[in-house]
């Protein structure tokens, strides 16, 4: 069996790498665990013991190393490519932060260690909490949520509990602009709330009149993404906040786009009651191919009692777990303290940048987005000539006449050596391409991208068939998604070693 190299002619791109099960060789051994002597009679009745073989791959250590090393070559990350995914803030993930998270004392710390044995971790988490509190302009922060959506759910549950405690149990409606990320309505539902969508104005901004109409005694909260998923700062935000508060409801900020504000604007100052941020976006913790993330939530003082447990507090002896958490707490939203391995990276990032570096993040994120927007002006329609925040949205609609869609442009960009922008989001823009360069890309990279993007759009009009058959320079061409969903194959069912049987 030959594991083919990934550097291949398009015309003869080989079949994919075999799976671990296809190359498994029954009887082969990799790493041996510690050798423990003693009897193997454990007193467990047969009925409770595993019956039958454990179908895991059997391979040598070298085979495993090769498998994953070669597979890694078939994926693009920030470390290899420019990833202009809007709303994802794919910025550089400092290697020093990885190192910090791997230090003995952090990496080998049992989460149920007595507090006396985790003073360093408590200090780290307490410090991060304080820093975020300041950067967000909020009064209290929880580090527990495991991702942005988890932060949203936490926020929803806090709002729910808050209104229950106030006896306003009829406040069950969450208003969400139609430009919002799917997690906003989904989190609201999961928190047992009723979701109402608010249509945006053609400009992409919140329709303040529509919102005002929608507000009622039943409104618990309005979730606003700031800057919006179109990369726009809500023109009438202060008015919106005033209206919502007047209606007795809370205002939530989805802070996934906080990179646009970092160090230059504090959500708390804008009147938000709750905000979550995504450390795996704004605070440069690695996305890891889809996770882990972390979604700290900040609240104003009236909501602080509702934060999930455990709660870290600062005493004169340093940071420690609050021994008697407020009974109004929504309870824990996950096991243990938080994704500390992620949060240590976030802390490292904030400490490295400090008060000088943090505002530069937002300023340069805005610079890059506005520069690239300018460079792509006229190539495809966008939101118009004004300043955007940290990202901007283009529409590939004009190309529909040639049968070319946003997704096809994305494939062309893959061939040009980039990851694609976010496509088909926000849903309110037809054929959306959402582009976020982050502060970490150089002018040279942006210029190259703008040139390639423009060239691809030109060719799309002239030779649409080219783009429709893209990508050609990738390990596979477009996979058949319909086939995948028809009768899904979700696991390897090959008999172990099948691929070896050729001999």
């Amino acid at each position, binding site marked *: 069996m030959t594991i083919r190299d990934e550097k291949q002619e398009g015309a003869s791109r080989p079949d994919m790498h075999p799976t*671990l099960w296809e190359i498994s060789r029954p009887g082969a051994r*990799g790493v041996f665990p*510690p050798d423990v002597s003693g009897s*193997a009679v454990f007193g467990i009745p047969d009925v409770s013991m595993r019956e039958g073989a454990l179908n895991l791959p059997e391979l040598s250590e070298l085979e495993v190393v090769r498998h994953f090393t070669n597979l890694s070559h078939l994926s693009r990350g920030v470390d290899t490519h420019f990833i202009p995914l809007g709303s994802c803030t794919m910025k550089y993930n400092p290697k020093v932060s990885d190192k910090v998270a791997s230090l003995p004392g952090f*990496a*080998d710390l049992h989460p149920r260690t007595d507090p006396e044995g985790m003073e360093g971790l408590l200090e780290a988490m307490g410090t991060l909490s304080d820093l975020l509190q300041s950067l967000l302009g909020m009064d209290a922060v929880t580090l527990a949520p495991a991702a942005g*959506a988890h932060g949203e759910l936490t926020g929803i*549950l806090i709002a729910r509990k808050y209104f229950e405690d106030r006896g306003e149990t009829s406040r069950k409606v969450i208003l969400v602009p139609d430009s919002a990320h799917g997690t906003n309505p*989904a989190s609201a539902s999961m928190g047992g709330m009723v979701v109402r969508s608010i249509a945006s104005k053609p400009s992409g901004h919140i329709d303040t009149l529509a919102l005002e109409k929608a507000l009622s005694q039943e409104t618990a909260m309005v979730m606003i993404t700031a800057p919006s998923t179109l990369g726009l700062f809500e023109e009438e935000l202060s008015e919106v906040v005033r209206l919502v508060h007047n209606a007795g409801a809370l205002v939530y900020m989805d802070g996934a786009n906080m990179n646009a504000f970092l160090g230059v604007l504090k959500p708390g100052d804008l009147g938000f009651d709750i905000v979550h941020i995504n450390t795996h976006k704004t605070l440069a913790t690695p996305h890891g191919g889809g996770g882990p993330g972390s979604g700290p939530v900040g609240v104003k003082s009236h909501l602080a009692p509702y934060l999930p447990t455990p709660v870290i507090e600062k005493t004169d002896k340093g940071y420690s777990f609050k021994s008697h958490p407020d009974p109004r707490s929504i309870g824990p939203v996950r096991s243990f303290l938080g994704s500390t391995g992620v949060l240590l990276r976030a802390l490292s990032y904030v400490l490295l940048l400090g008060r000088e570096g943090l505002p530069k993040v937002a300023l340069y994120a805005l610079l890059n987005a506005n520069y690239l927007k300018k460079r792509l002006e006229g190539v495809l329609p966008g939101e118009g000539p004004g300043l955007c925040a940290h990202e901007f949205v283009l529409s590939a609609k004009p190309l529909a006449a040639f049968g070319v869609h946003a997704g096809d442009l994305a494939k062309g960009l893959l061939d040009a050596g980039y990851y694609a922008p976010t496509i088909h989001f926000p849903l309110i823009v037809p054929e959306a391409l959402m582009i976020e360069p982050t502060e970490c890309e150089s002018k040279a990279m942006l210029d190259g991208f703008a040139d390639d993007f423009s060239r691809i759009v030109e060719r799309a009009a002239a030779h649409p068939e080219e783009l429709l058959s893209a990508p050609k320079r990738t390990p596979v061409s477009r996979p058949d998604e319909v086939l995948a969903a028809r009768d899904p194959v979700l*696991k390897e069912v090959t008999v172990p070693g099948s691929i070896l049987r050729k001999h």
Partner: protein
Amino acid sequence: MADFIPHTPLETREMLEAIGVSRLEDLLAPYPSDHVLPDLSDIPSGLTESSLMRKMRSMAARNKGGGSVPIFRGAGAYDHFIPEAVSPLVMRGEFLTAYTPYQPEVSQGLLQVIFEYQTAMSNLYGMDLSNASVYDGATALAEACLVAHRQEGRSTILISDGVDPDVVRVVRTYVEGVGCTLKQIPLVSGQTSLEDVVKCLDGQTACFVGAIPTFWGTVEDFSGFADALHQNGSLLILHANPHALALLRTPGSWGADLATGEGQPLGIPLSGGGPYLGILTASRAFMRKIPGRLVGKTVDREGRTAYVLTLQAREQHIRREKANSNICSNETLLSIQALVTLSLLGPSGLREAAEGSMKNARKLRSRLLAIPGVSPVWQETPFFHEFILDMPMESTKLSRLLLSEGFLSGLPLAGYPSPGAESRMLWCATEMRTEEEIENLGHAIEKVLARHGGMKS
């Protein structure tokens, strides 16, 4: 002293010019001018890399990690063997810094790895399928309960007291949000009685949740549970430690509809509590009802094998408020880590590690029981690698004293619901413990008891 901004002053000037503004601050025009550029004086000055490392090393040194104290504590997070090859593979930049594989053509490596992870979890749990991960074991179980709730709209969740009380609290946070109630089934000698469960079944019973092994270390016999539940139109959910499934009967084999677990024991460092790995598996009937991402195998235009994210219609970015869950970012990197670990160990290695843990747990138990005043809670109940003992001292105090002697003792069960109690401790020994460490621990306890006197001795 770092900002990771590549711009030279000249480039910045050129870019500002192209945009048509003169200063960076002009780009803040859309923001409310009375709030921009706030005072940051409470944020410290930026550190150089070396100052950061110094600072963080000194913080780390104030923690008692496994490198400085042998760990005899489990209770949901375990000090198992992690092969050294795991980290260099998982930390490769291509995996570490990738986004969710929405563009399959340039994400085949990641997609194949997730597909392989789904296979490994399906096989380990004996279930038809696995998703690509959720946040952690607790939220996995909570999500599974929500699947059961949505199934027929039933709102009572029966949950065995064998499930980690802290996990139960998370489940409560989740399910109470949608109006469900939890009903706990007590243990009898560390085991859930089928009769007790059957007594609770009614038309509102969405599911029953049991644990493999229980939080208290015991191994149960779930014979008959699936049938009884299914007859009532309720689901069986089993929350299992994946490491233990190398030896113990699988959720699938007990007839579970959904099975969940905390993936940390599969090669993921203890890391003070996270990021961990939420495992969620199911029988095929629930394929379109479970939350989270799924990777499927298909072909590309030339008929080559290719992998894609599939059945996305369940997810929030398509279904919004009607989605099966709000989950978006999951724990992909940790799923890779678990897969790499399992590949390196293979079935034999995993089995040996589990057996090693069981052997050490038994050695530990004998050694501790040899200490005057230490007594067992259950004499005959089968257990995996954890067990409760009555200690002759208040457990929180004993734990602190042993920590200062250089050991992370069993978990003090003071404050825990029954069978927890003031003087009880939940002890654990994995395959990583040595005979010397067990012996030294025994001595340390004897010393501590002699010096401080026992509560009951």
